[in-house]
């Protein structure tokens, strides 16, 4: 279980996290939605100890994340940030293998190799395994980073816009992979999504943020409604139910 208590964070005079208190139970997929600048990435960074909040606390399985030992936490929680610039020239396989670092400290065990191979297969990277990252397309690179995060084999997986740069096929494949990980391996996935229809179809819970606060949270059926989406995005959005899923239409 991930718990945040009264998180506050400001840059200069602008408050980007405003008393965020959340409880995310173990298991399932939670999607965080909200407009640009709502504070989604900031929240994810604070939960994953990449950024310190001005006040408040975060705990994972009742353990304060800033007191936890770095390597131990890295075996429990994996995070992928929204932007990943690499200056280093690594191959796909080398990058994904670094996902095993918390377990192996660089000396890959057979179990590590298996995890690396699985992650690469899930994200359809096997054919690219010896390519350097700077020789990949944007979507291929994104998949390599997600594979690295999955190879870490943690209970909690935090992903900031994992569908960035992905085509329809790969986006769906990634969502299905994550669903499978949740169902078969009892993982807990928290991710920031801009495509609210993916969020609607694949999440167990949706959290909506606006101006640094969590303004709504609930099941897709509760959140994907015209009234709540208007509140979140300040625009009119039509919602229709097809095959038991709610879809938002905002293209017209």
């Amino acid at each position: 279980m991930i718990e945040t208590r009264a998180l506050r964070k400001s840059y200069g005079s602008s408050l980007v996290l405003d008393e965020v208190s959340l409880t995310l139970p173990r298991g399932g997929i939670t999607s965080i939605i909200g407009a640009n600048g709502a504070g989604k990435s900031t929240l994810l960074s604070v939960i994953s100890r990449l950024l310190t909040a001005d006040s408040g606390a975060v705990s994972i399985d009742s353990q304060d994340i800033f007191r936890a030992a770095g390597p131990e936490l890295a075996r429990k929680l994996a995070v992928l940030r929204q932007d990943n610039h690499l200056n280093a020239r690594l191959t796909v396989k080398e990058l994904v293998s670094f996902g095993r670092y918390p377990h192996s400290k660089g000396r890959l065990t057979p179990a590590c190799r298996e995890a690396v191979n699985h992650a690469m297969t899930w994200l359809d990277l096997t054919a690219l395994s010896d390519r350097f990252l700077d020789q990949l397309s944007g979507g291929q690179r994104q998949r390599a980073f997600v594979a690295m995060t999955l190879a870490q084999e943690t209970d909690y997986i935090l992903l900031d816009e994992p569908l960035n740069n992905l085509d329809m096929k790969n986006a769906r494949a990634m969502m299905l992979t994550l669903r499978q990980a949740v169902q078969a391996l009892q993982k807990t996935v928290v991710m920031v999504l801009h495509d609210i229809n993916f969020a609607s179809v694949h999440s167990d819970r949706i959290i909506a943020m606006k101006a640094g606060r969590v303004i709504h949270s609930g099941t897709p059926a509760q959140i994907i409604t015209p009234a709540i989406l208007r509140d979140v995005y300040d625009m009119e959005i039509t919602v229709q139910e097809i095959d038991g899923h709610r879809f938002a239409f905002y293209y017209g």
Partner: protein
Amino acid sequence: MRLGLAFLLVAALAAISLTVGVSGLSLSRLLAGDGRDWLILWESRVPRTLALLLAGASMAIAGLLMQIVIRNRFVEPSTTGTVEAAGLGLLVMTLLAPGAPVIVKMAVGAVFALGGTGLFLLVLRRVPLRDQMIVPLIGIILTGVLHAATTFFAYRADLMQTVLAWTQGDLSGVLRGRYELLWLGAAMAAVAWIAADRFTLAGLGRDMATSLGLAHGRVLALGLSIVSGVTAVVVVTVGIIPFLGLIVPNLVSLALGDNMRRAVPWVAVSGAGLVLACDILGRILRAPYEIPVGTILGVIGSLTFLILILKGRRNAA
């Protein structure tokens, strides 16, 4: 396999290096147990060749390490103030404690080098625009300032000659008893290999390193300490060999990438080989006179570096 071939090539260069010099050596006289030839070999040629191998390999590794942890392809100890700061430290020791053992001087030089590198990182942090090329430019400015300070004191104390020796790699004076500190530098460079995964990971950036459970700050500090230590050792023994730490890691990275575990042996072998080749060249070009290895590498290195930049093989981060 290919690395083995490279090793053989360097071994061959080393064998050549043993035979090239003002006073001729001959295998038959050595075999016959000629005392003079053995003396030259043992007191001068072997030390010089070992010094070349050790200095070349450790400086190249130090350059690679610095590029990985600072995450910039265009830095090396002599473009970040590290070398100049080490020189300043040695100068301070020469002025204040001229009788101190060389290892103490070297240690103080290393501390100064670390301080200079730290200063460089502090300045970097305050510069908002982090273009790839801005980073070495800042380093060169800092180098200039430190150089001015060193020159000021050296000039007043009439030590310009000494300071010049630190920054211009020259191995013509290497004799037994005057280069052994380089083993210490090589040992430090070896630590960089042992901890290679940590450094590669640190090179992926603070966030990624932290999320994989690495104490990023500590690894960065370890890396820069190694770089400073190696720099101080090389400065105090044979003098800095310019461009070595820049071009060797860049060329290896082009072919093999930046996974340090894989790159370090290649960087070490290529660094040692390049320095050996340049030194041999310096000995035969104008024989019986010598051109310092630093001068030869300065020419070859600056040209290679120019080509690397013009090719602009990597966009700014």
